[in-house]
């Protein structure tokens, strides 16, 4: 077993080439080849029909919406859309594949030869060439019972849930990505992130990594110099977060450098990613790989997307994330770093809606990247999963802008909204948090404060405005924070006649 080479050292002696296969589950109502619902989180084996269970006699029918979504993805990736293409059968025995073959596109993908520009952390653009995007169906899900860690090894028995079997997938395959050098891990992560954003913008998938809507297989090889022939690659399967994609590439570069340094050849193999240790482990060796005996799926007819329809889909593509981000950044006046944080936090849409609801761009960013980001982090959920809508945040800010509450009260109102007490206005009324705008009670409180602290009152009257804060503080306390501190100051100064 060779030792790992420090990454920074490895990249001084080796050039990295990566290739990435991304699977995205399409958000269609029904499955790829049958009418079973393509939902998430149902009771096991309830979202099934004879087709998705592969019962004898059942036949597939292509989901037209899935084809449309695949074309959308292809067009957004600047691909050519096939005039005609077919499905094939990929034959292999495994219990989560109900027919013991997967219906997939093989040598005739729906979209091919494209590219996508990926923005790196420093704002530079890296172009990734796309080989193909093709349609296929997902497999069911195995659960192994009785072993350690839910792994099959040592398990007493396994359960299969076919709800996921037949969910439409699009697999996007890059050409070998060269020229990234030491930044290959970052390019890999940014590429998967770019695709995730693209899927969401195209409205073809919720693209939630944590649910496995987007899964990446990462191919890595290294070679002595950028001019050397390509090295032997490994394929690390099912890397399911952006961070893991980056780590998996880094790890493989370090590992492969160690192997090559020892004069040992890299084995072409499938490797498994272990999130806990941040390492990859050998899976099956490719030379023993099964022969999938692909042949054209005889139960389906070729798909020949009408050219006019393709153009219609092209014309209907939304503004894509990169262009949209550039436009919004300009409109909102955010600095590059601020915008990147917003994007990374998945807050672009949230801030946009908040602004639409009346908040200023600065205020919207302050709420989402401040108070709300902290809350989400504490609860370990996404911003979008917080029980507050961007519209409510906009309403909250409007209450501040109208002077009805101050920042401190606003945080209390937000607390109420997050606790499910209703809209900001409702919370404000129910909790009685409105700023005291009637001068009468304020004057009474000022008089009381002055009377309670005669020394300070005397100092102020003599022209020393230094200690006014103590009086204002006392008034705020007396009004339980519901006073407008600015107004209290004005009234105080009037009162002492200065």
């Amino acid at each position, binding site marked *: 077993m060779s030792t790992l080479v420090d990454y920074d050292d490895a990249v001084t002696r080796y050039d990295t080439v990566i290739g990435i296969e991304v699977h995205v589950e399409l958000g269609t109502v029904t499955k790829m080849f049958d009418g079973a619902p393509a939902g998430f989180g149902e009771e096991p084996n309830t979202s099934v029909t004879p087709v998705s269970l592969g019962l004898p006699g059942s036949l597939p029918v292509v989901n037209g919406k899935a084809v449309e979504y695949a074309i959308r993805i292809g067009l957004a990736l600047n691909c050519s859309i096939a005039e005609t293409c077919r499905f094939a059968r990929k*034959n292999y025995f495994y219990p989560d594949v109900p027919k013991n073959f997967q219906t997939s596109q093989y040598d005739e993908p729906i979209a091919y030869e494209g590219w996508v520009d990926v923005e790196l952390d420093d704002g530079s653009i890296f172009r990734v060439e796309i080989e193909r995007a093709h349609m296929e169906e997902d497999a069911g899900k195995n659960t192994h019972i009785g072993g350690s860690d839910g792994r099959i090894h040592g398990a007493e028995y396994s359960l299969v849930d076919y709800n996921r079997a037949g969910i439409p997938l699009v697999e996007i395959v890059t050409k070998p990505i060269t020229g990234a050098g030491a930044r290959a891990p970052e390019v890999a992560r940014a590429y998967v992130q770019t695709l995730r954003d693209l899927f969401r913008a195209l409205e073809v998938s919720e693209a939630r990594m944590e649910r496995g809507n987007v899964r990446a297989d990462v191919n890595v090889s290294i070679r002595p110099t950028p001019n050397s022939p390509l090295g032997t690659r490994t394929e690390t399967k099912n890397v399911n977060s952006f961070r893991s994609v980056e780590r998996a590439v880094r790890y493989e570069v370090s590992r492969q450098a160690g192997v090559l340094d020892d004069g040992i050849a890299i084995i072409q193999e499938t490797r498994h990613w272990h999130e806990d240790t941040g390492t990859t482990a050998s899976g099956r060796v490719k030379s023993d790989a099964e022969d999938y*005996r692909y042949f054209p799926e005889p139960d389906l007819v070729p798909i020949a997307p009408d050219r006019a329809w393709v153009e219609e889909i092209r014309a209907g593509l939304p503004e894509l994330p990169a262009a949209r981000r550039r436009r919004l950044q300009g409109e909102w006046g955010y600095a590059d770093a601020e915008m990147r944080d917003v994007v990374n936090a998945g807050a672009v849409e949230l801030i946009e809606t908040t602004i639409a609801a009346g908040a200023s761009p600065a205020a919207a960013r302050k709420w989402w990247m401040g108070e709300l980001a902290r809350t989400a982090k504490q609860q370990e959920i996404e911003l979008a999963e917080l029980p507050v809508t961007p519209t409510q945040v906009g309403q909250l800010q409007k209450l501040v802008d109208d002077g009805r509450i101050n920042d401190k009260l606003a945080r209390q109102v937000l607390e109420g909204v997050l606790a499910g007490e209703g809209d900001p206005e409702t919370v404000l009324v129910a909790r009685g948090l409105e700023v005291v705008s009637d001068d009468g009670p304020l004057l009474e409180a000022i008089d009381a404060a002055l009377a309670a602290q005669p020394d300070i009152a005397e100092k102020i009257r003599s022209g020393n405005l230094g200690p006014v804060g103590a009086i204002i503080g006392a008034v705020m306390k007396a009004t339980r924070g519901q006073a407008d501190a600015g107004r209290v100051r004005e009234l105080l100064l009037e009162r002492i006649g200065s």
Partner: protein
Amino acid sequence: MSDLTRISAAALAEKLTAKEVSSVEATQAHLDRIADVDGAIHAFLQVSGDAALATAADVDARRAAGESLHALAGVPIAVKDVVVTKGLETTAGSRILEGWIPPYDATLVERIKAAGLPILGKTNMDEFAMGSSTEHSAYGNTHNPWDLDRIPGGSGGGSAAAVAAYEAPLAIGTDTGGSIRQPAAVTGTVGVKPTYGGVSRYGLIALASSLDQAGPVTRTVLDSALLHELIGGHDPRDSTSIDEPLPALVAAAQQGAKADLTGVRVGVIRELQGEGYQPGVLARFEESLELLRGAGAQIVEVSCPHFTYALAAYYLILPAEASSNLAKFDGMRFGLRVVPEDNPTAERVMSATRGQGFGDEVKRRIILGTYALSAGYYDAYYGSAQKVRTLIQRDFTAAFEAADVLVSPTAPTTAFKLGEKLDDPLAMYLNDVATIPANLAGVPGLSLPSGLSDDGLPVGFQVLAPAKADDRLYRVGAALEALLENEWGGPLLLKAPELEVAR
């Protein structure tokens, strides 16, 4: 012996419509006949008497209430066991599906049920429709009603024998390389393989998806037309289903029965006669040609040179598709599950289940197909076979420019003895030499009885038409049937020996 079992489906339907008889009476008569003779014939794997009688009673009640019913409502029918029937065991003749009760109906079964035809039961067949004699059934042989020591043809020997033995007036068959037409030929019945895509495949347990087609098995050409119109037509659940209305099949059969074929060009396929064909088979074929000529048809000879390679191409395409279609039978979700005592992993359960559940012929074809699709062999085998298929399609296209229909003997010989070819797969495969080209090209074919060979056994006459011109089969078929029955003085089946009645 009840008359109700001897008459055609069309005649029975008329009696039902006229309320001369009830569907319960007609269904009971057929159930009685099954009880009487099926011990000797073994056409049925399952008899669903109670369900059939319930359907019959329902139809009778609806008819009494004045409801408008399908022309065949109340006429009983038998269904080949390769077609899934909700709540009724469906095995495809295989141990691996023993006891499997499907949770859904095939589209054609839905249509049969919607039209109110009582389903008498499921008929025997070669396992997964692989065979030409029904001897590959895991549940025992079916016997030819003409001679109980002989095969009823296959794979749909059960459906053909049931109809020939008056156990059912109508039956459903499936035809991947001749499994409707060859059994029809050797049992003296009528069988039709519709145009590929003409009848939904949804719910047929697939043998070879690009070749399979369900169709009618009956005693008359008109009955086949009636049943074909019932089960045929577009089905959105089958992507290969033709999205067009069927041609007028019953009308074509009725027109044909007038036996006037003036102007119809009948092409005799040069490659489907001569060597390998029994002299009696060829003699009956020639006599039928003369009758057609007499009815005004123009007889022309056509050549389909690539038919010579049809059998070879077929035995690559079929096993290739079958090896994949049959992969789902693995003991994981339904049917037989064999758990080895030692280390029962999923892989070992699959292997043990398939090892015990499949018969030898099925294993033979799975192995052939797996090999033909393997990396490095695909182009030489599956790829080449697909090219041959294209050439055969071109042969048909050219032939149909010279002729409106093509004709040949349905099978090279009459029914052979049980066991005679069981150990010689190649000899068995040769039975389908005349029927296979239609499946490879997707064109429709019909077989009807054209007399008895020198051995006293029935001979079949095959009519082929261009894709989507199934009506031509019925016109020419009905004409020849009328001409022959005129010669014979009635249906050929009248010459079959009476079966001993068990009761």
